[in-house]
């Protein structure tokens, strides 16, 4: 167990609180060039107040802090829609190889043929997996991939002299980045309802799709963990209205080898390499959100795109590119990890990923449905959304259950999302977890439900044994303390 049970023993002093004048953790080499004239002193600053600590103190400080975290390496982490699967260690090792980690993004193409070949191969594999063959790896996160996809849609409509298309239709179950990206792309967001089965309300969509529709944004499988059964009809409605279909591929982990988005009529999608393709979540990034489009739309992709030519591999700008959405070529070393993942799983392995992810989620759902309401009570894909409404009536909210899970060393599911489900707890076990782990989770969830009647305070005051109990987030927002200052040093206050 990595969680320290005696919270009072944890030294929470910040680095600046530990700083002692004269200590150092690092020595730079002496200059080996003749001394140069410094600029006029009017340009120069006083010292930067960074910590003065020994090298051991740096290592111990950050090592101890790391132990205050839950992580995939140490805990079951069924955070829905985040696909917290095993992050293979070999991928980290390979991405850091000399020749990959130490190349400059502006080196001439002929000096980075291996790197560009890797990117091209990954583009091809992602195109094959999604059935959308135009691929740019430039987006630095899912939200950027989504934004890039919307810019592609806008550029396409403009190229058709159809610039009056200014509406993005977004389901009410969508992730928050969907409407936020649409707004950034200058699109008006119109919400389409979900029906009582958790599907897109097709009749409502039919009413909304018209000559102003630029794009319909569909998360597939949906944030309810469901595959949209009417997808072919939906895509036809959107296409008949002249709009494009954008698929949010956050949940692609359910589809590998089972269905290709392009075959279903999807025009644009993004994928999160840090979800489906196992690259580390890093405590909140870096991500990578490649954007995939039909062959017809490939000329609008953000630059750069890796290409193979007679003269070798090159980083190229598509003919009618929407331009650069960030500094260089995207998250190269994340792409390298994803490529390693695809290469080691291979065809059968990737199919097995989705199959096992789906079976595991349905197993949890089947084992908990007598205790917890299921948001949409039918077979799910890779995640199941529980609704703690029965528990809420007995005095315990979804939040409390989430906090109580932490006491058992299990990370909480995604809470209160999607927003259309009351007391939502979105559980995504992933294919990485063994049946024994799933059984343990199921037993804990059932026990928590029992505790509501036997000892509710255990749930309402949870977590009990973590470095902190529940935090006063209201005061944090009302009186923000966002950095160390000599005055805010809490030990001296």
């Amino acid at each position, binding site marked *: 167990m990595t969680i320290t049970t005696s919270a009072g023993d944890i030294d929470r002093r910040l680095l600046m609180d530990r700083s002692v004048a004269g200590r150092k953790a690092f020595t*730079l080499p002496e200059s080996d060039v003749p001394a*140069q004239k410094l600029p006029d002193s009017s340009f120069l600053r006083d010292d930067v107040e960074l910590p003065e*600590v020994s090298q051991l103190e740096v290592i111990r400080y950050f090592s101890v802090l790391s132990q205050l975290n839950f992580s995939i390496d140490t805990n079951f982490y069924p955070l829905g829609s985040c696909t917290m699967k095993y992050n293979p260690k070999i991928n980290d090792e390979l991405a850091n190889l000399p020749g990959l980690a130490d190349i400059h993004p502006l080196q001439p193409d002929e000096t980075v043929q291996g790197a560009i070949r890797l990117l091209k191969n990954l583009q091809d594999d992602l195109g094959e*997996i999604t059935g959308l063959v135009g691929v740019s790896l430039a987006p630095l996160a899912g939200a950027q991939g989504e934004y890039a996809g919307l810019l592609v849609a806008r550029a396409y409509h403009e190229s058709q002299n159809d610039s009056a298309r200014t509406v993005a239709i977004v389901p009410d179950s969508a992730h928050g980045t969907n409407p936020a990206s649409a707004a950034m792309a200058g699109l008006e967001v119109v919400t389409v309802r979900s029906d009582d089965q958790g599907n897109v309300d097709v009749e409502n969509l039919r009413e909304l799709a018209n000559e102003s529709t630029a794009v319909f944004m569909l998360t597939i499988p949906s944030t309810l963990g469901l595959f949209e059964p009417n997808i072919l009809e939906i895509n036809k409605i959107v296409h008949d209205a002249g709009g494009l279909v954008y698929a949010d591929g956050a949940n692609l982990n359910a589809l590998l080898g089972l269905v290709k988005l392009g075959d279903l009529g999807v025009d644009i999608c993004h994928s999160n390499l840090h979800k489906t393709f196992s690259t580390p979540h890093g405590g909140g990034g870096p991500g990578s959100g490649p954007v995939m489009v039909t062959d017809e739309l490939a000329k609008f992709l953000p630059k750069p795109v890796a290409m193979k030519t007679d003269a070798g591999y090159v980083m190229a700008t598509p003919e009618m590119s929407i331009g650069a959405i960030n500094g260089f070529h995207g998250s190269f070393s994340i792409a390298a990890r994803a490529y390693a993942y695809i290469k080691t799983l291979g*065809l059968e392995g990737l*199919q097995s990923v989705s199959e096992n992810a789906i079976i595991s989620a349905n197993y949890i759902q089947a084992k908990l449905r007598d205790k917890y309401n299921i948001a949409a009570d039918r077979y799910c894909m890779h995640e199941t959304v529980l609704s703690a409404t029965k528990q809420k009536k007995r005095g315990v909210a979804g939040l409390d259950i989430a906090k109580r899970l932490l006491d058992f060393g299990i990370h909480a599911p995604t809470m209160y999302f999607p927003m259309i489900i009351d007391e939502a707890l979105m559980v995504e076990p992933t294919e990485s977890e063994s049946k024994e782990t799933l059984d343990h989770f199921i037993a804990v969830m059932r026990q928590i439900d029992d505790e509501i009647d036997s000892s509710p305070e255990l749930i309402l005051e949870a977590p009990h044994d973590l470095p902190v109990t529940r935090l006063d987030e209201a005061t944090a927002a009302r009186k923000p303390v966002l950095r160390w200052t000599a005055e805010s040093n809490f030990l001296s206050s």
Partner: protein
Amino acid sequence: MASSATSGGNTSTNHPYIPSTDLDRQEMLGVIGVDSLDGLLGDIPIEHRHPGLNLDAGLAEQELSTLFRSIAAENASSSSGYISFLGAGSYSHYVPSTVRSILQRGEFVTAYTPYQPEAAQGTLQVGFEFQTVICQLTGMEVANAGMYDGPTAFAEACLMASRVTKRTRIGVLSSADSRLPDTLLAYSKHQGNEIIVITPDATEIPDDLACIGIQSPNFFGEIEDVERLTKLAHDNGALSVVHVNPVALGMFKAPGEFDVDIVTAEGQPLGVPMAFGGPYVGLFACKKAHIRQMPGRIIGRTTDTKGRTGYALTLQTREQHIRRQRATSNICTSTQLIGLMVTVYAATLGKQGIKDLANLCYQKAHYAASEIGNLNGFSVNPISPGGTFFHEFVVKCPGSPSKINASLLNKKIIGGLDISDRYENGMLVCVTETSSKDDIDKFVKALSEIGASA
């Protein structure tokens, strides 16, 4: 090696990343109440199910390692004996062992966004330390927990200035790296913003600008008069947005001393490998007065029910998961892991190290500039002779920089960036602490020989 689809049955691949056995699967399917996986896929149109993928069979770890080593061997880098003088937004710096070591902690690497703060105090406290480091470096009051990269941070800063001033026209200095206005354009093109180019010597600006976006050191390596330009912005009701190099802040005055409103930077120079362009982290700091318009994640200090100190995400009502289309940005990450690298780097270098590092870069770059400036046919910093620069400078070459670079490459030297699109026969040269005097002398000698034959 390509193979076709399985015919709808369950593949029983045993892979090290997938623990379920055939028996496990059969038991679970039995509990679910279906015979096979296909019983769970009824919502997927049957004619599109199991399409077959044209992918190779999986490699064992050892084979994968061999493949990657062959890919890496096709690239030229310092590890294969090349020396490089490229900068322009990505910089070669030594990464201390402490950074690499802490980056091995799976508890940091494999956690996610700290939505459950009780189970993420490590990530959160590091983020708070990161915000502190960025404030200390820039001299600003508040910082967020990180953006995607430098150019996206700059673009978001200009859009934030637009929200604060309720003005749509954004001024950007002509001396900035084109990656900054290019990214800004991609971020703003559908939001009704217009980008206006301002020259660094401007004494007047339009009175309806949201901000002046300044890069200092600028694309050509020179320090801009941030104080004067900031005053010019403020006199016209605009904000000043300054994009800095964080290593330069080890010696040059911090933007906070000049009343700058928003500071952004590429965080890569602070302990992050160049890695062919990413992932990096964007640094973002501003005045406290503007904090509720700031994009990105912010971590704040608070207390738990027992009065103990703890950290949590805060001011989340700015963000997309709460405010949806009315959020300050669609950003959904803080590039936390790269922020960790920056934080460990800053802690490792400390007060003395950051100063020594800046000085070492300055000394070596100025030595290189003076040596190149002495060569026949070459001149240094022709754009503003006598200007102050940090570790990058423009060399006016006697001929095409791309041809010179091709000749340099034969000598295993990756020359400076060809910027002849911005300055005739211009090459942007960067020298950091990773170049030895021998490397610099070799470069100068090669330029001399190539220049003589150009």
